């Protein structure tokens, strides 16, 4: 592990990278929406108790959906909706509306499962969710985002075997990159960031004005740096972005971003296809180098530091 003579030849990789976006774009916004309707509430309660506080998912499909769709249409933004198969079965008309309007549908499990804990059931659930979305949409999804960002060391391999083109679950890079979980079958990673995700910020109970300040600070700095700008929204009425005032705030933000002219919107499939066209060298499996250490390390859970 001590650096050998290759140190000098690798120096170029130690500098900040740049990325050749298509059509002269300075930076590209990947607008994705985690659909997460009733399926998310059903992780907290049972079908006979889906009232009151467990109605925020229902808000998203009843009240929020048309607002968000109209906003995207107004700004001609192609988006990717990651949809749990249960939500797609429950709302096939909404999913077909999205497809008809040119948006991409990506996979997100059947019932927003924790993919780090599925064990042998994992490939079956990935396949079944893909088949359900294919049935509802008329074509199979090419992208996947793990519910709550949880993945097993096998998820990427299963995705590659099932013919997925890209994953959008990692939080580790300024740019898309390539992995080869199965010899000859590559997966493009289109990473996200929590800094541009309405979920955690609205969950911290910030006002929409403050959330827009975060989004603006992030988007402007990323545009300056020419990176992928992964903006993640939710459809829900609690920590999602479809309340009227939040949609109005996004309307203003998109108007400002569009006025730059050099920041383009692309959906996940288009970003992955472009990355694939660049012939990127596949990177090593993200877990492989850590498996030996993980095998002898006690699970301690998330760092138990909470503000007092």
């Amino acid at each position, binding site marked *: *592990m001590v650096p050998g003579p290759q140190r000098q030849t690798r120096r170029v*990789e130690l500098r900040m990278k740049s990325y050749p976006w298509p059509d002269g774009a300075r930076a590209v916004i990947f607008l994705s929406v985690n659909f997460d309707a009733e399926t998310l509430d059903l992780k907290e309660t049972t079908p006979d108790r889906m009232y009151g506080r467990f109605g925020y998912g229902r808000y998203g499909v009843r009240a929020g959906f048309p607002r968000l769709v109209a906003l995207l249409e107004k700004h001609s933004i192609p988006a990717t909706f990651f949809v749990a198969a249960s939500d797609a079965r429950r709302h096939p008309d909404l999913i077909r509306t999205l497809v008809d309007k040119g948006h991409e549908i990506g996979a997100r499990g059947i019932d927003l499962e924790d993919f780090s804990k599925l064990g042998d059931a994992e490939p079956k659930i990935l396949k079944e969710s893909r088949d359900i979305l294919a049935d509802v949409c008329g074509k199979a999804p090419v992208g996947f985002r793990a519910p709550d960002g*949880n993945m097993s060391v096998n998820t990427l391999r299963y995705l590659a075997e099932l013919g997925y083109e890209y994953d959008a679950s990692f*939080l580790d*890079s*300024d740019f898309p990159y390539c992995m080869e979980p199965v010899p000859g079958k590559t997966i493009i990673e289109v990473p996200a960031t929590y800094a541009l995700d309405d979920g955690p910020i609205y969950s911290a109970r910030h006002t929409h004005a403050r959330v827009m300040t975060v989004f603006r600070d*992030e988007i*402007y700095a990323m545009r300056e740096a020419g990176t992928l700008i992964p903006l993640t929204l939710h459809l829900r009425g609690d920590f999602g972005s479809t309340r009227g005032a939040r949609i109005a705030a996004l309307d203003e933000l998109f108007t400002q971003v569009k006025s730059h002219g050099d920041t383009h919107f692309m959906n996940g499939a288009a970003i992955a296809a472009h990355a694939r066209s660049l012939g990127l060298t596949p990177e090593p499996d993200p877990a492989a180098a850590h498996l030996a250490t*993980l095998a002898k390390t006690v699970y301690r859970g998330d760092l138990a530091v909470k503000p007092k």
Partner: protein
Amino acid sequence: MTTRSIFPEEMRCVVLMGIDYDGTSHEVGRGIAPLGKNSCGRYSARDGVPRLLDMLDRHEVPATFFIPGYDAEHHPESVAEIDRRGHEVAAHGYLHEAWPLESAEEEVLLKRTDRILREVTGKPVLGWRSPSGRKSDTTLGVLKSMGYIYDSSEKDFDLPYRARFGKGADDTIIELPNNAYSLDDFPFYKFSYTPPSEVLAQWKGEFDSIYCSEGFVVLSVHPRSAWGSGTPSHTKVMSDFIAYAKSHDGVKFFDSRTFAKWCLDHSDKLEELSYV
């Protein structure tokens, strides 16, 4: 107890910047594979450290990178680059042990990380910052026995001081206390999701207060994504903070080892806190 500055007029305000590398060690050490939402540590070597190094180059200011040994094993080229660009490589646990360790195990890990870092840079390691602020009553003795001259883990003072860990004449080490609550990145970006522009205002406020009093600023950041400072917007906050600090008279940036040596040379100006 004094809270007035102990520094000469030409360095009336000292700024130390500690960058806690916190790569995949942060998750792997807790038994979590660095995948999906647990992949933020992968950002450090890939994008965060290169961006911070370029930013520091532009300002021509030094920093100290506190690095877990495990991360240095996995990214020796990144650690070597930090050293080559003139910054300090210091220790930060092996697997970012954010839990209490038995003394014997702690000593093994301190020595392992020390060896790993020395092998990468070919230089002695002179300082340590505890991962998540945990250490024991034997930590400082082990650090001193390895030739370390400072620790930067305490949260209990506004100035550097001598920490006494034994009764012998040499049983002291320089302590450079930091503030992981309001002059750090993760409290704002991880817990409160404060907008980056407000974080800048917060850090400037901390600076203003310290500049007018003790004159000892210790900023702690992380290169990882999400709650770190290696991303474009968060690096910009740090860059703007550095520019703001530099615009004041008598502000001097040091890496921690250089400043700890100044403290050793001016030991009479420091308070001593005895743990024995």
